């Protein structure tokens, strides 16, 4: 095909900017999933459902109370955290951990996702929603290309979350406890760490992150109770690529996936670029099951 004729420096610059923005999106979506898997070894298949729930909470607050989505982030975080704690205490806690609980945890959390989706249908109906504020359509000119303000905010917040998570895990006592539990849960009980409490906390933080991702996504895209699958799948790809539990691994992985998808348009028909992420996922799993950054524990 002739796409190579269309390559110019400016065009590559545009693609690069798009890739970075998309990476911010993917990273923000993936943190929650990565954290939960890194510590609990449980794949949160309800991740997409929590993202959708966060989007609806943010939308409801905007639509009914007129609260700006960015200002509602703390509320969404708290509600999603509570949801995660409830999910863990009520359900996930009763499962065996690790490989033994593999398929069971997948199916359990998938069931939770179905329930979340049904609740959304009942409360909000199936109509597509999006959060549109005065600044939703504004864009800034950066390096010659126009950058949507909302996507830039997501990128910024995505990086902020990464730094925040990193600091939490490295510098705080709780963070160290989380890392210790991720490394070796049994030994932790020996040194007096309440492992169950850490698990609950981690699960809650994971869902809180997913909820925040939901609000942020709602400012850019429209969503409905049926959303969540593509977010979940993309998060999978990023988490698997980035290796277990490495926060910056997630950032780098998001960048790789986004770049692959965006630049693939140069060689593939646009429609097929949506398969690129999945193919990457399968390739990485088969060639390097530990992800690109190895099976490292939270770092």
């Amino acid at each position, binding site marked *: 095909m002739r796409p190579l004729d269309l390559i110019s420096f400016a065009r590559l610059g545009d693609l690069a900017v798009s890739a970075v923005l998309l990476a911010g999106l993917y990273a923000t979506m993936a943190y929650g999933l990565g954290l939960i898997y890194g510590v609990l070894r449980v*794949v949160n298949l309800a991740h997409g459902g929590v993202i959708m729930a966060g989007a609806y909470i943010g939308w409801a607050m905007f639509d009914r109370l007129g609260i700006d989505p960015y200002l509602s982030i703390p509320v969404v975080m708290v509600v999603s955290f509570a949801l995660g704690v409830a999910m863990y205490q009520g*359900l996930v806690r*009763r*499962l065996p951990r690790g*490989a033994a609980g*593999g*398929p*069971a*945890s*997948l*199916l*359990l959390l*998938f*069931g*939770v*996702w*179905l*329930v*979340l*989706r*049904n*609740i959304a*249908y*009942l409360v909000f109906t199936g109509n597509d929603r999006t959060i549109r504020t005065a600044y939703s359509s504004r864009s800034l000119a950066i390096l010659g290309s126009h950058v949507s303000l909302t996507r830039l905010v997501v990128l910024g917040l995505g990086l902020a979350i990464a730094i925040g998570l990193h600091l939490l895990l490295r510098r705080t006592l709780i963070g160290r406890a989380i890392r210790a539990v991720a490394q070796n849960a049994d030994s932790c009980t020996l040194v007096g760490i309440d492992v169950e409490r850490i698990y609950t906390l981690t699960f809650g933080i994971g869902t809180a992150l997913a909820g925040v991702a939901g609000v942020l996504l709602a400012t850019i895209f429209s969503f409905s109770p049926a959303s969540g*699958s593509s977010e979940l*799948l993309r998060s*999978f*790809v990023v988490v*698997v690529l980035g290796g277990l539990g490495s926060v910056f691994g997630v950032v780098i992985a998001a960048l790789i996936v986004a770049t692959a998808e965006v630049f693939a348009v140069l060689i593939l*028909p646009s*429609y*097929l670029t*949506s*398969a690129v992420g*999945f*193919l990457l*996922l*399968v390739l990485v*799993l*088969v060639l390097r*099951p530990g992800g690109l950054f190895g099976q490292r524990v939270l770092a």
Partner: protein
Amino acid sequence: MKAPPLIPRATVRAFAVVCVALAVLPLLDVSIYTHNLLTRSYILIAGALAWNWMGGFVGQVSFGHAAMFGIGGFVAGRLALELQLPWPVCWLAGALIAGGFALGAHPLLRLRGPYFSIATIGVGEASRVVFTYWERFTGGASGMSLPIDGTFKYQLYWWALGLAAAVAAASVVLRRSSFGLKLLAIKSDADAAADVGISATLYQDLIFVLSGAVVGLTGAISASYYSFLEPSDTFGFERSIGFVLMAVIGGVGTALGPALGAVVFVLVQTYLLASYPQFHLGIYGVLLILIILFEPLGLTGLGRRVARLARRRAPAEQVSRPAAR
């Protein structure tokens, strides 16, 4: 002393009776609706049981079986449309190519637990995108329309029943045979199994190909039944989840549990949707949660518990009576 038969005579007899009864059923005055409902159920039963060989016997939960279903369906449909081959030949071809696809997915088999499941999601979704794009093969987003043959659709009942019966018999035999034991060994601890000489890759390959071929066969028969196939529906995630739901509800890992799950699934889809459509997702979700938490073997496990309780009560009465004297 003779070793007990692999399958008790009584079970074989019961099975034969059930099959004959079902085969004869349409000849009695049964409505066409029931006829079609049962046909669809047999197709789902076969699919759920075949999925279970992989997900239950070997313990590798696949969320991407729709890929093989779709391949079987479209291969069969394409052959019927272009070469006008008789349907059974097309079905066979569909099954073979679906099995071949499973063989091609061999590299996935060295993944364990959730990694394998996630990889199957990736393969399933990638297949959906690629096959929706591959217009020459699937007809693209428009799908593939097949000529309707009313009499043949009526006869599908017996073809589907035959398939379901064969797959059910195979499931029971597999479960009890030494092959089944080897699979159980691999499921429990693949490394330990390798230590005693059970090659995980060989057996998993075999089961994966068999499972894929049968699911492909159900896809092919579905093509004849619906006379219309569309890639995003046929290869969709929802369909893959359907297999998982049926097996889990019925009892993943048991010999015939998924067949029960398939029947329940059909009942729910047909009757629940008519009465409470706004709750059907939630009901599946709650069912899944309850099963995973309280009865991992689904309805089969529930049934066994009830049976055990019933048996325990009877001898207990006999024991307590003499003592009470």
